[in-house]
């Protein structure tokens, strides 16, 4: 978008207006996330910048809310729950989703479009409908207010992401490698673990990370299905926002932002690696 030397004044003005507008949109996207980080070090129990913070007075900053977070048994319990639920759901969703993607990406797959639209449905159906429906159904099966129920629900919500990313990775996959392995005497399982999986691993891991963050961030199903015992981090934050208790949620939010930055970086690296493995040049 460099401006050519022969640009007219109108073009120049337009060019700068356009760039300023885009910069504004980027600020709109990123500022809300960045604003929370300094506020979480607030020494006062306010949700806004104090005068001391603006003067950069070290007295006005503290780790008080982080201390509160790590010393609060409720939050620690929520962290434990979130990790248990999200990792179980991720494991299940990744396994089921990867196997399904292997079938879906084959040329011979019958009814591909229909099956695909059914498998993607959990991503499209409004979460409140899914949560309400699961509440009715799982209560009848005695799965409400249980870890099993939430893990199953989160698995269902996470699988579309795995299916999408793994099928996308498999579209660039060279099928003759499988035939080569088989002609050399490898069985289907051996071929999968030694040939296919290493090549599609970046896609599988990105899918798994998507499934993980879906479960880790999910609150509506938890609101309906979880009892007090199964409260997760988002559920605890929900309670915090509703009751305006303390800036501890800002500290938690900062930690979650750091986690998402780490996940985003991992996914981006994996995407590049996958492109390289498939011989695509950017």
């Amino acid at each position, binding site marked *: *978008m460099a401006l050519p030397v022969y640009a007219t004044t109108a073009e120049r003005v337009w060019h700068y207006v*356009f*760039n300023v507008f*885009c910069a504004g*949109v980027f600020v*709109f*996207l*990123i500022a*809300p*996330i960045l604003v*929370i980080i300094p506020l979480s070090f607030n020494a006062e129990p306010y*949700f*806004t*910048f104090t005068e001391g913070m603006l003067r950069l007075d070290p007295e006005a900053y503290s780790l008080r809310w982080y201390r509160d977070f790590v010393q609060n048994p409720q939050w620690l319990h929520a962290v434990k729950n979130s990790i248990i639920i999200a990792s179980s759901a991720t494991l299940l969703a990744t396994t089921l*989703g990867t*196997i*399904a993607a292997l*079938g*879906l990406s*084959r040329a*011979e*797959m019958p*009814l*591909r*479009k229909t099956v695909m*639209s*059914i*498998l993607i*449905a959990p991503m*499209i*159906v*409004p*979460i*409140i*409908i899914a949560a*309400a*429906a*699961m509440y*009715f159904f799982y209560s*009848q099966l005695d799965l409400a207010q249980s870890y099993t129920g939430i893990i*199953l629900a989160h*698995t*269902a919500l996470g*699988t579309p992401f795995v299916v*999408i990313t793994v*099928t*996308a990775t498999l579209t660039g996959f060279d099928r003759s490698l499988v035939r080569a392995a088989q002609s050399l005497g490898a069985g289907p399982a051996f071929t999968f673990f030694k040939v296919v999986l290493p090549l599609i691993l970046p896609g599988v891991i*990105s899918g798994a990370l*998507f499934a993980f963050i879906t479960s880790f961030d999910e*609150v*509506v199903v938890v609101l309906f299905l979880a009892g007090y015992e199964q409260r997760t981090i988002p559920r605890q*934050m929900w309670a915090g*926002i509703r009751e305006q208790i303390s800036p501890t949620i800002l500290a938690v*939010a900062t930690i979650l932002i750091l986690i*998402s*930055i780490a*996940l*985003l970086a991992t996914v*981006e690296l994996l995407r590049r690696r996958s492109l390289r493995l498939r011989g695509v040049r*950017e």
Partner: protein
Amino acid sequence: MAQATATPEQLTAADGTPLKLSLARAMRRRRLTAFLLATPLLLFVLVTFLMPIFDMLTRSVANPEVRSYWPEVTAALADWDGQELPDEAVFAALYRDLVASKQARTVGKVATRLNYEMSGMRSLIMKTQRKVRRIEPPYREAFIATDERWADVDVWKLVKRMSSPYTLSYYLAAVDLRFDPDGNIVAQPENKRIYVPLFLRTFRISLLITALCLLLGFPVSYLLATLPLRISNLLMIMVLLPFWTSLLVRTTSWIVILQQQGVLNDLLVWIGIIDDRNRISMIYNQTGTVIAMTHILLPFMVLPLYSVMRTISPSYMRAAQSLGAHPWEAFWRVYAPLTLPGVGAGCLLVFILAIGYYITPALVGGTSGQLISNMIAYHMQKSLNWGLAAALGTLLLVAVLILYWVYNRLVGVENMKLG
């Protein structure tokens, strides 16, 4: 080889079966293998996701209360013509059902169910069951003496109508209609019409959010698509980071920024644009919902737009301009039409996600920013009118599925991009 060309019908595989048959068999096996691979997930989604939704759909028409808790009344009313007050036998059945359902503690459910259809029914039934011990034959006079509303034919018509196993009344309520005593469909009284306006508000706010996302997303996608990849990949992080950040975190930050004592108001006061006493209320109303949801859904607009714009060669625009088109004309007549698939995909996706949104309106919407999802949650958790919640949910689901079908035709789910 020579033999094969001489008699083409005789082509055989190594084991002697005709080649055509053998090929068909092999293809069938391969199709089956492919399908079997997808089966575990298909079954899983069916059991954990689709069956619950189907179960909810049946709940929106199910009407078990009167039928199962007042079986004798149901049976006695079956032959009633609905013209005059029922006879003694029906009142006797009511007495027995009342006693039984009082003992089983189910009378409240019947009373609540009937009250959805006609206000005052709950108080009538609860009052009668409290005094049931004093009721003695002849039952008809005794009931009417307890409360004269039992002499109202409309009450009995309602009980009879509600004793059928299925009902459309939840759907009618969900679109601000109701049955009148004679079973005709009529509009709700003006002051009780809340769901149609709420559906309309949900559509209006979702459209506004979609338009805002397009307005903000289009230029940014254009910029990202025309910049060299090295820079655009860096800028893309700014789009993807919100995408990966917890929804609750993003909603919290909007509360921090927009509230009356929040960062933005402080800034405006400090600059001197507004007075300290006239801080703008930007949150806990529709404005808050629109701002926060636009922020949350913007990446879903940018990603499909960007992937389409990347494929449009800049030489098209140059060609148009070299043929004498003004840059604007070149943009509108050459570039913009080429981006339409991306615009369609992005708008549909944002709109689908917006009409079903729950968390953000619930936290920052106040009362004027509530959407239909919040009403479903209200009936699920507070009013416990699950039939109505299911009916509202089904209507929302139908709207979403129609849009999903269009999306599928237009874009194809298999082309969905995630970062």
